[in-house]
C-alpha cells in the first residue's frame, strides 16, 4: 500500500495500522454506525454519504464439541473478566475493536444467526462458492 501497489483497502484496522501510521495511507471512512475511538477524525460511511455500506466482523472463542459445560462457563467468565479490565479495553480500542462478551447460550444462537446473515449477503451478492 505504501509502495502504491495497493491503492485502496477495505480492512480491519490492525491490518492497515502500519501504512496509516507511516503516512503511506489515509483512512477515508469507517463502514459502521459509529466512528472508531482510534480514528476519531474519520467519518462513518453514512457521514461520508454512503449509508448503505456497512461491513463488520467478529472474533469468537470456540471449544471442541463435548467440552464439559462447566469448563465452557469458566472460560466464558474468565473472558468477561479480562474484557472488563480497563487496560485491556483501551488496548482493544487502539486496535479498532469493540470488546463484548455474551453467555454461551447466547453465543450458540449468535453463531446460527450469523451463518444465516452471511449466507444471505453472499447469495444476494452472487459470490461463487470456493471449491
Amino acid at each position, binding site marked *: 500500500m505504501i509502495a502504491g501497489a495497493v491503492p485502496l483497502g477495505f480492512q480491519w484496522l490492525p491490518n492497515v495500522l502500519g501504512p496509516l501510521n507511516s503516512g503511506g495511507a489515509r483512512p477515508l471512512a469507517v463502514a459502521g454506525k459509529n466512528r472508531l475511538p482510534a480514528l476519531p477524525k474519520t467519518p462513518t*460511511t453514512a457521514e461520508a454519504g454512503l449509508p448503505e455500506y456497512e461491513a463488520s466482523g*467478529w*472474533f*469468537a472463542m470456540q471449544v471442541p464439541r463435548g467440552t464439559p459445560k462447566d469448563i465452557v462457563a469458566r472460560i466464558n467468565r474468565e473472558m468477561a473478566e479480562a*474484557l472488563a479490565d480497563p487496560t485491556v479495553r483501551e488496548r482493544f480500542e487502539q486496535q479498532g475493536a469493540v470488546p463484548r462478551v455474551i453467555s454461551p447460550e447466547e453465543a450458540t444462537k449468535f*453463531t446460527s444467526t450469523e451463518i444465516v446473515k452471511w449466507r444471505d449477503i453472499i447469495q444476494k451478492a452472487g459470490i461463487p462458492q470456493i471449491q
Partner: protein
Amino acid sequence: MNKTPARRVMLGALVALAALLDGTLVRAETYPSRPITVIVPFAGGSASDVVTRIMLNKMSQSMGQPIVVDNHPGAGGNIGTAMGAKAAPDGYTWVASGSGPIAANKTLYRDLGYDPEKDFEAVTPFAFFTIVVVASTQLPVKTLGELIAYAKAHPASSITARSASAARSTWAGSISSRSPAPSSRTCPIATSPNMGRT
C-alpha cells in the same frame, strides 16, 4: 451396636464425596491444571491475532496457567478452525476463530472440513470490528466522495487492488458491488476485508 448406622452414614458420605470428586467439582476446582493452547487460524500480527493475545495475556494471569497461541493460517481461517474441531474436548484447546470460518465460510466454501455449529461449543464472541476504507496517499483522494468521483472518472484498471486469496478477492468484489460506491459493476475496486486476513 450404634456403630452400624454411623458407619453407614460415613460410607454414604464417602460414596457421595467420591462421586463429587469424580465429577465436575474436582474438575472445576483444578481446571486449568496445565497450559492451555489457543489455535488462532490467522497469521501472527493480524487483527485477530493481536486482540486475541491482548485478551489471553490477561486471562493467563487470572487463570494461573500459561495460555499458548498457536497460529495456523490458511484457507480463510478454515485450516486452523478445522484443527480445533478435531482437538480433545478437555478444555485445554480453544480456537479463537471469527466471522469468516465460523459464519461466512460455511456458504463461501463447498467443504470446510468441519461444521461451525455441530463441531464446536460456542464460548462467546469477544471482539467486534468495523471495516476501514483506506487509500494509499499516492491515490489523489482524501475523502470517500473524492474516491467515488475519482473512480467514476478513471478506467476500471486504474484502481484495482491486489488481494491475497481467492476468498478475499471474490469477497471484495462483492462488497464493492453491493455498495453504491464507485460502482464496481463497471469499476472493480478491489481488495478485501475480512475473510482471508482476519
